[in-house]
Structures are given as structure tokens and as C-alpha cells.
């Protein structure tokens, strides 16, 4: 299997990222489609038919939406475990998702920051953000999960139950920046570190530095 120099994670079908032109000159590339991003491999979307790129669709996201049908073109099914394994050997990772985009240089062993900045519209979005983080936890990666603004909704109501296992079993640290959220810290599960990202922490709150490989979901 070739070692990808550049990895793109696409989790949204509505967005057509400029990623293909940005990879001009990259030696090899991997395009990993997760959540609604897998629909690119089921349609005439240009991103799902890129010729010189290895395209992998998350088999769980694919099965949820497409059943047993095969992905179009040369896309193949894979797992989140494979994504994280390939990520560790990538030099740059570009994410396009419901919470926006991110592009970060990466080197092996660099701490990962899974950033969730969108409020879940349905149980599927809740579930797939949770599964993404669980995959990193399953591999015992050096990673953390940051909920920003409306992303804090993942930690409330029906979503709180699934994330609670991270706290009870010490899987990955959970952090929340509630500044742009209409809820308050008291609505979040005990054990979630509250603070401001990219700014010095106020006394008593968590220090949340910004020097991470960002995976913006």
C-alpha cells in the first residue's frame, strides 16, 4: 500500500472542497470519505471520481446510507482504524466537514485534536462523530476531543450517554469551549474540561493549547 503524503477527510456532501487543486505536486494522496462524505462515491460528484487518488469510504457510513451496494468508480470500503493508521504517516491532513475546514501539517506521533464545532441535526450525526473519536480511542492514540460552540450539543441530552464512556473509562480527554454556545458549563457532564481554545486559560480552567494536528469534523 503506498504511503500517502497528503490525506483529505471529507465528511460533508454539500461542500466541494478545493482540495484537488491543492494536491497538485503531492506525491500520493488518500481521500477518506466518512459520514455524508461517502455520498461523493455514490454520485457523479467530481471528488468521488478523482483519477490519481486512492479513495476509501468508511464501510459503516456507507452501509448506513447505501446498504450492500458497491461504491462507484475505484473507491473501496475501509475503516476508521485504517484512516488513523494512514494518518500517522501523512505530512498534511485536510478536513472538510460539518464544522468547517482545517488544514494542518502533521508528523508521526503528533497529538491529534478532534474538533467538533457543529450541533448534531440527527442521531446519525451524533453517532458518527462519536464513532470517529472511539476509533482514535480504540487505537490508544495521543488524541483529545474539543467541542466548540454549538458542538457542545453533542454532550447533552441523548448524546451525553455515549460520550460518558470516555470519562468513565479514561479513553480520551474531552474539552469544551462554551463561549459561543447558548448552553452553559453546568449542562455538560462532569469531567469535561472547560476552557477557551487558543487563548491563555483563566485561573481554575483547563489549559487548551493550539499546537495539535486538527481534525475538524
Amino acid at each position, binding site marked *: 500500500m503506498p504511503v500517502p503524503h497528503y490525506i483529505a477527510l471529507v465528511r460533508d456532501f454539500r461542500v466541494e472542497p478545493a482540495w484537488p487543486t491543492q494536491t497538485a505536486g503531492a506525491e500520493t494522496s488518500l481521500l477518506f470519505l466518512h459520514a455524508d462524505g461517502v455520498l461523493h462515491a455514490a454520485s457523479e460528484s467530481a471528488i468521488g471520481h478523482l483519477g490519481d487518488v486512492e479513495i476509501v469510504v*468508511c*464501510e*459503516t457510513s456507507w452501509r*448506513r446510507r447505501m446498504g450492500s451496494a458497491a461504491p462507484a468508480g475505484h473507491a473501496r470500503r475501509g*475503516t*476508521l*482504524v485504517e484512516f488513523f493508521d494512514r494518518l500517522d504517516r501523512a505530512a498534511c491532513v485536510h478536513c472538510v466537514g460539518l464544522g468547517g475546514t482545517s488544514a494542518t501539517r502533521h508528523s508521526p506521533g503528533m497529538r491529534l485534536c478532534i474538533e467538533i464545532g457543529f450541533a448534531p441535526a440527527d442521531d446519525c450525526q451524533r*453517532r458518527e462523530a462519536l*464513532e470517529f473519536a*472511539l*476509533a482514535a*480511542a*480504540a487505537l*490508544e492514540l495521543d488524541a483529545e476531543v474539543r467541542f466548540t460552540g454549538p458542538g457542545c450539543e453533542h454532550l447533552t441530552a441523548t448524546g451525553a*450517554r*455515549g460520550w*460518558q*464512556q470516555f470519562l468513565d*473509562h479514561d*479513553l480520551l480527554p474531552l474539552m469544551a469551549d462554551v463561549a459561543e454556545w447558548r448552553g452553559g458549563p453546568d449542562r455538560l457532564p462532569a469531567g469535561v474540561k472547560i476552557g477557551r481554545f487558543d487563548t491563555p486559560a483563566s485561573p481554575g480552567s483547563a489549559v487548551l493549547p493550539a499546537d495539535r494536528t486538527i481534525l475538524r469534523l
Partner: protein
Amino acid sequence: METAGFVDPPEPRLDNDGHLADAADWTRDWAEQTARRDGVELTDLHWWLIGFVRDHYLAYGMPPLMRVAIKAMREAGVAEAASSRTLYRLFPDRPIRQACRYAGVPAPESCI
């Protein structure tokens, strides 16, 4: 089968994966019979894992990661040197998934 006015309870419904459609229908006897049909003899350690998986599912809405089950096994003292190999020896084909079946909870959805 009917005996002296008593009727055997109906078999609980299964989903497409062969798991109980309703976790509330689970009984130890059902798990025992299902395992026996599969050719699996359930030991104390099997039962510990089945109970742990069921409790985890009822608490968090999903089964545990393997690393969580392994750590819990060590901390509970049921297998102090527990590792992934321990789980695979209990249930050789996707241990957590198999344990889910006997625990009466749905098969894991994800590819983790």
C-alpha cells in the same frame, strides 16, 4: 408445546443479525441455549464478559471497546494478565460482537 395447561413462551424475536430484537427479552437461559446451539460452552470468564458487555451497553448505548473490556477484566481480577488474546480465546470470531449476541444486545454498528 403444551403440557397440562402450560404453554411454552414464544421464542424471542431476533433482528437481521441474529441478535435479540429487544434486550429486555434476555435471560441467562436464552444465552445458555443460544451458545449451546453455536457449540460454545460458557465458562465463568465467558459469563463475566457477557455481563460486562451487557452492562456497558445498557449504560452507554453501545458495547465496549476491546481495550475497555481488557482493562476491566484485569481490574476485576478475573484475568489479571488479560489481553486481546484472552478475548479471542473466549470468542474467536470478533469477541465483542459475539459477546453482544449472548448478552442480548445489538451487534456493534461500527467498524471499530
